[in-house]
């Protein structure tokens, strides 16, 4: 090995090998959904509410909770569990297709 070994060109944003591409695809989909799941409610409160956050989301009610509260307290966590399940399914599906 006289020649200097090259660093392996692994990168999340430009994966080269088929199975790595498949894994990255599953991860990208789930991470985008992840950001959507937890950021939507705070941003909506920020955009539609007054400076204390009071607005349509806080005035609406769901199961006896203020809607904004329910969405964050329970909706987000339920979403996260489902996303983890989705990742396992997508990962298996995409990597199988890649082989």
């Amino acid at each position: 090995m006289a020649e200097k070994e090259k660093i392996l060109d692994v990168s999340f944003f430009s994966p080269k090998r088929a199975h790595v591409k498949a894994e990255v695809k599953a991860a990208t989909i789930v991470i985008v959904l992840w950001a959507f799941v937890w950021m939507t409610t705070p941003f909506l409160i920020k955009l539609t509410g007054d400076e204390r956050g009071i607005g349509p989301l806080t005035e609406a009610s769901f199961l006896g909770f203020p809607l904004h509260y329910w969405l964050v307290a329970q909706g987000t966590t339920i979403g996260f569990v489902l996303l983890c399940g989705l990742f396992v399914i997508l990962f298996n599906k995409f990597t199988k297709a890649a082989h």
Partner: protein
Amino acid sequence: MRKFFIPTLILALMAVTGTALAAGEELFELEKGFKLVPAIIMVAFIGLYLTVGWMMKVKTTEGYWVAERNIGSVGNGMAIASDWMSAASFMGVAGLLYLKGFFGLGYIIGWTGGYVLLLCLTATQLRRFGKFTIPEFLGDRYNSHGIRLITAVVTVIIAITYSTAQFKGIALISGWIFGMGYVGSVFFAAGIVLVYMLMSGQKGVTKNQQIQYVVLITGFLLPLFIIFNKIGGEIGSPGILPQIEYGQIITGGLIQGQGGGGEWAQNYTTPWHHGTFYQFFALAFTLMVGTAGLPHILVRFYTVTDEEVARKSVVWGLFFIGILYWSSPAYAALGQFFNPAGGKPVADVIILSAPERAGLGLFFMGYLASGALAAGLSTVAGLMVAGAAAIAHDWYATIFRPDSSEKEKLLAARVFTAVLVCCVIITALKPPALIAQIVAMAFAIAGSSIFPAIVLGVWYGKSTKYGAMAGMLVGLIGAVVAMIGWINEVPFFSSTGIMPATSSALILAPLNFITNIIVSNATAGMVTDEDIASGNEVIRAMHSIKD
């Protein structure tokens, strides 16, 4: 300043609420004195853990560190959940919701969402690498003893900070049962942890964590169902499923007459009443990247059979964790219903205070307390294993004495576990903040220093040891400065500041990423053949690259 602020606030609350003035001191506190039934239940459970720990006694270092790698997905899910659900989840979250309402939900988002990141970005790859510890992973990936050392130091700082909160929780619980003072309770807690840890190592810890999950989740849920069943009529709901019925309480109509009803309701109905959008966002973000960078959680993926199981166990783990977080706001609501004027002194023990006031009865109170103890113990055990491994395995056995025998390594592991417990006793005697806040600080450190190094280590081939080290130092120093700033009440680092110690990773994690990438590219010519070979070997294993 804060020293005066809190008593003033309590006085103001008492003045506003007529009932509080009339009832006096005891409205805030738990009942004092020795309680026989809870004591018997608690001692029985400790006996059980010790027996299991003793039966699973380990003889090899592989058993001590990674439980012989034969844990299945539901089992590992339970172990993740019980590693995870510490005194902070069990006691602290309910306490913060009790004090801060909607803002407290930032903790719930943060402590669940991180698992999605962890699963997508690192769980599979870390399992494929599959050695013992996180310092070992980073050390091998970058071929650098320096990085091994920094990561080991970070792991130890996290273990101490995080365990401080657990010791506070365990001490508050055993103080309530045995009627001891706080200091005595801290030493008592340390005794239990130490005996238990030294006897079993990671395998016993994993088995116990599965038992402890069952104890802590039933200990948490049963009392809640019983109380709601009892008060269903009063709050105008059937009293069957507390998790969706407490809405009636937090909107405030029901506690108007008991003082402070309007104020409590505002905590929930006004989103930015206890913190701005920015603070909420920063907190949730910090806790998420922190979750994905916590050494004692990451190391759980080394203990499973294969990567498929590693992935599935995250789904189970998060589901088990979710069950608790769907329920803890209900305790906070109960606290508001039964003890509306409690304030900060009662926040960390609200899960005991509310049922006590609801007249739950000593048997279930004892069970609840045992659940809290299980939560604290299991997390401390996981943390101490990770912390002691960082010193004994990554420093002593890898750097300092590479030729030490199996027996010496095991001895070193035990000695360092004991040393760590002693450090925690000292910090736990005078904890700097509420349980959940101290834990959040540990997360800020993990998210600012370790998370970016791991993600780039896995997903960016060009990341070099110089880049990783520069990035980690930026994150670590930043987070520690924020923590010191918080303790010394510097406004910039306080809970209303720009970079609170509990939320510093929103700024520091991206800074760490950028530093790592810039320095890595600038130093690309400085890496040696040996660095490249070692890095490539790890990358090949992580991404199962054959060519």
